């Protein structure tokens, strides 16, 4: 085998070269105008998108299929995460804290954060913000509560958790398919209902995203479940 | 299908299929031996009663089969059939129980080959029968299973295989040159072929192995003594003649003058006739002596073949002579071989008669007047007379023949001498005796019934040779007797000291 320092050297050179080439490429590309002016195209179509903020429009209308799949990815991560969780109880005495400061902080912060999340969700239509940001904040709230030792039984790997995980995704999906039933293309919102539907989707997505993130945090595996592998010695 | 054709098929197929009897349970297979003398009978009938000229066309056979009969083949067939019949009869008495079936199988196959090759006119069936005879003959030679027999068999087989291959190559070349699958077309094609020397060489050598040409003869003195006596008889009487027949039907006789080959054959014949005698008189075993005698006799025939090769004009004349000589030698030698297995009666009179009957065919070989030998020798002398032969070596032929006659008798005497020393006394099985007697009788008598009108060389049976002929026949015999007596005296005196 190559000596460690040789490999380090080679890797370093490789990375430096790559960065250099990348920078050169960026420099070269930056010198030329793009042949397609997508932002202009976007702004021309904004009024048909149903939301005011272009990013949200792109996410939930123009490229909503991306978002759908993205939520799918998130759900997958959640599923894979809870599939690892083989613990029967979420009650982990070591996690329960008796720190009063934390406890007090929690009391203050949790409602605040939930409000913040609501705001982010609402603001998503006009300015930066949206389901994911809101979901992240909600999840952070959950983490805080968890650290504070508050039992959250709904996070037990069970139907409820799974429902929560899938909720946002399924609503999104239902809307997508429903729009087709109405004769439109897939993932196309009916003209009048665009705004409303997007808001609904965003809300449930927020919930689901928060659930996923929280579940991933909570379901850190702790016990020794045995599952004989295929191909192992009998 | 003419009746002759049917008979020909029967004549070949009977011995060919006879081995199937070996499939019978071994208890009943003993019957096989009694069939032995019957096997050649259809062939015998065919030879005696059919007129030459018929043919049997079998386009489906091999590369197109054609069997037919002409004068030459008729004589050979006659010899073959007679000899095999009497030897078969002899064998009934001779054979012991062990390996009986195997012997019978080989016997039948060899016979089938021998008969078939005389009838076959197309190359493929001729060669097939020839090969059948060769390979089945091996079984007859090694029948006794002694170490000597096995060695003899090995030598036989090796030489035979080489011979077969030479024949194959020669026939292939000749057939391709002739663009024909018939033997009859070969001589002319060979004569005209660019590679004629190669072809002739291959054929001479190939058939020469069977015919006991010098240097190709080694198997003969080895095989004959060890083979069962009836087998030796047919081996020497009939089978080696197959080699001769091979020459006669393939070499370009009468098509072109081949003085070189003629000379070579004459030299070979001379060497065989005299050299074999020289070696033969030194042998101690009667059948070995006879084997050398066969070589010697074949040498004489080779002389004629050489003459015929050298002088195309003379070939037509020599052919019948060769055939006659063959017939004569075959029967006489067959009888002599069979006599080697005969036990002497104890009664003095019977003993004398027996000795006489043993000696007569031998003397016939040497050309005793009133025997077939005399006739054959005379015809040969006539055929090879120097003035009628256009050939450089023709001057030597006459003395050679004379010397050959001396050699012949010397060998016969030596045979009788050795036989007398080894002969057992006792009773002969009847079949054995019958076979031997029949052979001797055939040798002495049957010759005179032969169809003599063969192209007018010998017009009719010469009961009484003319005086000069008589002298010509007798003085070599005298010389031989004197030599033999001298040798006897010398050996006695040597022994006394």
């Amino acid at each position: 085998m190559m000596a460690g320092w040789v490999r380090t050297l080679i890797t370093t050179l490789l990375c430096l070269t790559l960065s250099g080439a990348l920078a050169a490429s960026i420099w070269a590309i930056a010198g030329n105008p793009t042949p397609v002016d997508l932002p202009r195209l976007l702004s021309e179509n904004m009024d048909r998108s149903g939301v005011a903020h272009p990013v949200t429009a792109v996410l939930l209308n123009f490229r909503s299929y991306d978002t759908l799949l993205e939520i799918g990815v998130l759900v997958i991560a959640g599923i894979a995460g809870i599939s690892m969780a083989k613990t029967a109880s979420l009650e982990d005495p070591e996690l329960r804290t008796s720190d009063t400061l934390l406890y007090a902080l929690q009391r203050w912060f949790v409602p605040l954060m939930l409000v913040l999340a609501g705001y982010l969700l609402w603001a998503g239509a006009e300015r930066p913000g949206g389901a994911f940001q809101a979901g992240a904040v909600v999840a952070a709230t959950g983490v805080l509560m968890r650290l504070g030792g508050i039992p959250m039984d709904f996070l037990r790997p069970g139907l409820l958790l799974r429902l929560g995980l899938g909720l946002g995704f399924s609503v999104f999906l239902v809307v997508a398919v429903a729009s087709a039933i109405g004769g439109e293309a897939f993932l196309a919102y009916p003209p009048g209902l665009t705004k409303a539907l997007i808001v609904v989707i965003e809300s449930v997505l927020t919930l689901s995203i928060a659930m996923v993130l929280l579940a991933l945090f909570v379901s850190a595996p702790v016990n020794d479940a045995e599952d004989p592998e295929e191909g192992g010695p009998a | 299908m003419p009746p002759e054709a049917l008979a020909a098929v029967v004549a070949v197929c009977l011995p060919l299929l006879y081995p199937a009897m070996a499939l019978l349970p071994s208890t009943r297979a003993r019957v096989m031996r009694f069939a032995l003398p019957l096997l050649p009978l259809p062939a015998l009938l065919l030879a005696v009663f059919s007129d030459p000229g018929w043919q049997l066309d079998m386009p489906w056979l091999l590369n197109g089969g054609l069997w037919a009969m002409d004068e030459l083949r008729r004589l050979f067939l006659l010899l073959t059939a007679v000899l095999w019949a009497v030897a078969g009869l002899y064998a009934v008495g001779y054979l012991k129980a062990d390996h009986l079936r195997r012997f019978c199988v080989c016997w039948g196959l060899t016979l089938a080959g021998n008969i078939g090759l005389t009838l076959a006119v197309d190359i493929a069936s001729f060669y097939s029968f020839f090969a059948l005879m060769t390979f089945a003959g091996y079984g007859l030679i090694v029948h006794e299973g002694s170490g000597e027999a096995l060695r003899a068999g090995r030598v036989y087989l090796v030489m035979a295989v080489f011979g077969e291959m030479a024949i194959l190559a020669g026939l292939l070349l000749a057939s391709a040159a002739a663009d024909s699958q018939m033997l009859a077309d070969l001589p002319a094609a060979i004569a005209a072929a660019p590679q004629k020397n190669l072809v002739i060489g291959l054929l001479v050598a190939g058939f020469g192995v069977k015919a006991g040409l010098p240097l190709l003869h080694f198997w003969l003195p080895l095989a004959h003594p060890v083979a069962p006596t009836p087998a030796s008889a047919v081996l020497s009487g009939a089978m080696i003649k197959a080699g001769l027949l091979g020459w006669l039907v393939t070499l370009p006789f009468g098509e072109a003058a081949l003085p070189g080959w003629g000379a070579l054959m004459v030299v070979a014949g001379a060497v065989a006739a005299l050299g074999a005698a020289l070696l033969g008189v030194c042998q101690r075993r009667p059948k070995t002596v006879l084997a050398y005698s066969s070589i010697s006799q074949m040498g004489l025939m080779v002389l004629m073949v050489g003459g015929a090769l050298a002088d195309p004009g003379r070939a037509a004349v020599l052919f019948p002579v060769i055939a006659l000589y063959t017939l004569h030698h075959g029967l006489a030698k067959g009888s002599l071989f069979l006599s080697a297995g005969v036990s002497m009666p104890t009664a003095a009179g019977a003993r004398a008669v027996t000795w006489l009957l043993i000696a007569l065919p031998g003397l016939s070989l040497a050309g005793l007047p009133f025997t077939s030998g005399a006739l054959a020798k005379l015809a040969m002398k006539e055929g090879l007379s120097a003035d009628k032969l256009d050939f450089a070596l023709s001057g030597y032929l006459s003395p050679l023949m004379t010397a050959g006659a001396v050699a012949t008798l010397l060998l016969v005497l030596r045979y009788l001498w050795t036989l007398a020393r080894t002969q057992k006394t006792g009773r002969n099985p009847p079949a054995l005796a019958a076979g031997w007697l029949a052979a001797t009788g055939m040798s002495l008598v049957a010759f005179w019934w032969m169809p003599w009108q063969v192209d007018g060389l010998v017009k009719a049976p010469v009961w009484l040779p003319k005086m000069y002929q008589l002298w010509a026949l007798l003085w070599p015999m005298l010389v031989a007797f004197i030599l033999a007596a001298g040798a006897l005296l010398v050996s006695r005196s040597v022994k006394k000291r």
Partner: protein
Amino acid sequence: MTASLLYALAGAVLFGMGLYGLLRLPHLLRKLLAFNIMGSGVFLVMVGLPQHRGGADPIPQALVLTGIVVAIAATALAVVLMRRYYHLSGMTTLEEPSPEQRPGGRR
């Protein structure tokens, strides 16, 4: 040179750094962090490059948002796997354990 282009160039540097870390650092968590650095580099390029010309471009921003979610999902999954892995094997690197303790290995 605009600030956006600077972002993009910084992204190039970050990508290289992250790559180095991902390749060379043995500890799994470090690898994961390196991956995130790389990801940030890519996002910087993605946003910075178009922005350099036409000002804010919402499309790459949206793409990056999606990309971030995906990256978070992946990171989260990786963390869960790592914790489970650590729990089962007590290891924080991907090195093959010695043969005697490898399940299904040669005896």
